[in-house]
Every structure is written in C-alpha cells, then in structure tokens.
C-alpha cells in the first residue's frame, strides 16, 4: 500500500549515492524484496516509472529479486523454507519456537550507472 513512498525512499538514496559516487544516470537498479517485507512487487513496478520520471533513475531498468520466507528453529537450528499457508513450524522437529531469518528484506542491492 505504501509502494509509492518506498519508490521515493529509493530515489532519495540513489540521488545521495549519485553525489557520493559522481554519476548522472542509472541504467539498472537491483532491489531485493522479501515476501514478508510488506511491499507488493507489482505495485512497486507500477509506480516506479512515474515516481522516477524526473530523476537520474529515469529509464533505469528495475530488476527485483524476490526472497521467500525461511525460518530457523530455535530448538534444533534447522532451516525451513515456508511456502504459502504453511504454519511457521520447524520441518524437522515440529517446534514452533522459530525466528524468521529470510524474507523480510527490503534493500537496494546495487546500481549500474553511467
């Protein structure tokens, strides 16, 4: 629901990087978006061209890597990838004493710039 403000946050960070690294144009931006990051990839793709229209990200290719959810069992330390509608329980010992170790990411990985 807040993908447009996420797009603006991306622009702000990239523009700061543009000053730091001295570039004027981004050819490609690579984002990492976890399944539980609260961001809808399609909505982000939809608003990105319009949000970036007057910035150095204009015409940049938006590459998004989606990351699924993985939990780690706090009892036996097994890693369990979680698919949709699956309870957050360890696949090995069944414990529900777990923590999320992947799937909440929301990061700019890197930029290809001119």
């Amino acid at each position: 629901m807040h993908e447009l403000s996420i797009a603006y946050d991306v622009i702000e960070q990239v523009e700061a990087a543009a000053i730091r690294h001295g570039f004027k144009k981004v050819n490609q931006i690579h984002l990492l978006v976890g399944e539980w990051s609260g961001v809808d990839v399609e909505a982000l793709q939809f608003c990105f061209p319009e949000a970036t229209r007057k910035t150095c990200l204009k015409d940049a290719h938006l590459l998004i890597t989606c990351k699924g959810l993985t939990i780690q069992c706090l009892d036996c330390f097994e890693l369990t990838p979680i698919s949709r509608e699956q309870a957050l329980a360890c696949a090995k010992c069944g414990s529900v004493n777990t923590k999320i170790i992947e799937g909440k990411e929301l990061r700019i990985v890197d930029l290809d710039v001119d």
Partner: protein
Amino acid sequence: MCQDCGCEIATDLISRKILGVPQVQQVQKLQISQEVFSEDRNRSTPVSRRIEMGQAIVEKNIQQAELNRMWFRTHQIPVINMMSAPGSGKTYLLEKTVQALADSLDFAILTGDQEMSYDADRLKRVGARVKQINTLSSCHLNAQHIEAELQGFVGARSQLLVIENVGNLVCPAAFDLGESHKVAVLSTTEGEDKPTKYPLLFHEADLIIVSKMDLVPYLDWTQEVCQQHIRKVNPNAPIFYLSAKTGEGMEAWLKYVQTLRSEATSMGSLREVLK
C-alpha cells in the same frame, strides 16, 4: 580518467564494442576490459559501472526508530505500538484503559489517522493526555512522526506511551517506531482468519488482543479457529480475549500495561546500579 565522473575503469562503450555483450551482463566482463585498457586512462567516453548499495530502503526510518528507542530507554518509558484494522476497537479499548488507570499511571497517547481528530477527541473526553497525528496521504505512522512529539508532548515525565497506529493491517507492520512492545488487536467481527491473511503484523506482535468478545453470540465465530489462525503465524505471544464494553477479560490487559511500567522502572534502576 573519465571526464564525466572522474572514475578510472574502462569505458562502457569500449568494453561493449569489444565484448559485444548486452548491458546487464556487462558488469562481470568489465573486470576483464579494465585490465585490457588500464593503460589508457585519457578517454572521455561514458563509463558504466556497478555501485554496491546494500542498505535498507527504509534506512532513514530504521535509524530514527533506534534513536527513539534510545530516548524511551533513557527516560524509562515503555512504549506500546497498537496496530489493527480500522474499526477493531482500539480507541474504545484505550478509553476504558484510561478510565481504569489514569489515576495511577501518567500515560500519553499518540493516535494516528489519515484525517480528522475524532479519536483524540474521544480520548480527551475521558481525561486522556492525547495528541492526534494526521498522516494525510500516508497509510502508517513512521519514526519521524513519533520523534516530532518526544520533547514537547510525550516529555520525560510520561510513565507510558501508547501509540495507536493508523488502522491498517499491512503497512504499519513494516515501520518500526522505536516501541518496546507491539500489540495487535483483532476484533471478532473481522472473522477468524485475518492473522494468516495478514501474517507479518500478527507475527511481529508481542501480544494479541481479540476484541468485541461480547458479540460472539451473534457471529459465526469460534475462538478455537481464531486461535489456530493466530498460532500459525505467532506461536508464542499471549492472547487476551476481551470485551472493552462489558469489561470481560479486561483485567489481564490492565495488568499487562501496569507490568510494562514496573518492568521498565526496575530495568532502569538495574542500569543505574550497574553504572
């Protein structure tokens, strides 16, 4: 050196011409071309290069939330971030909480909505120290909203802060405010399945309140099914089933709030001792 940006790696134009690879695959190949042309640094053609970023997109919020958290810890103020769908009964629950605890506890309430100050008005009427935050176009409160109220409204003398977030089951979960405790409220009228439909918010909660229990006789709603949905995404958090209207189950919630306060002060005195 490139005249455009001053960098010293081989030009995109040259490496593309030599290697004949499309833009995206350019990066790995650049390493090779860099060696080939490293002698020739006086070209002025544009350069394509990769810049590693790595930071979180909501980095600004993360940093501000940490600063807020430090401020709350310094002043020994426990902070509840209360999140739910609109209409789950957060404000009504807080009205009843204020009526029960305001004499013994000096607590501040920040309430977030896109527009209007209905919630703050309601809470003021029962004697709460409350301030409305209007987020306008935004669907959640962020750490900056809270920071703006620390010195003036919240103040060092507050014994507890409750933040009533914008009614929304998606976005508030992604924005840390610097709170010590996340409380999710789910009303019986929303149905049993919301926790698994909106998993992140319920997963992150330290406490889950199921509200409007007085309406159960009129609904196709069962506690067992609701609990199953909650446990799928949050195996450990306590669940309080209550009705703010009838008072059923309210003691557990009021006790929880009071305990947060006493824990915060005992942690504070422990830190003083350790100093």
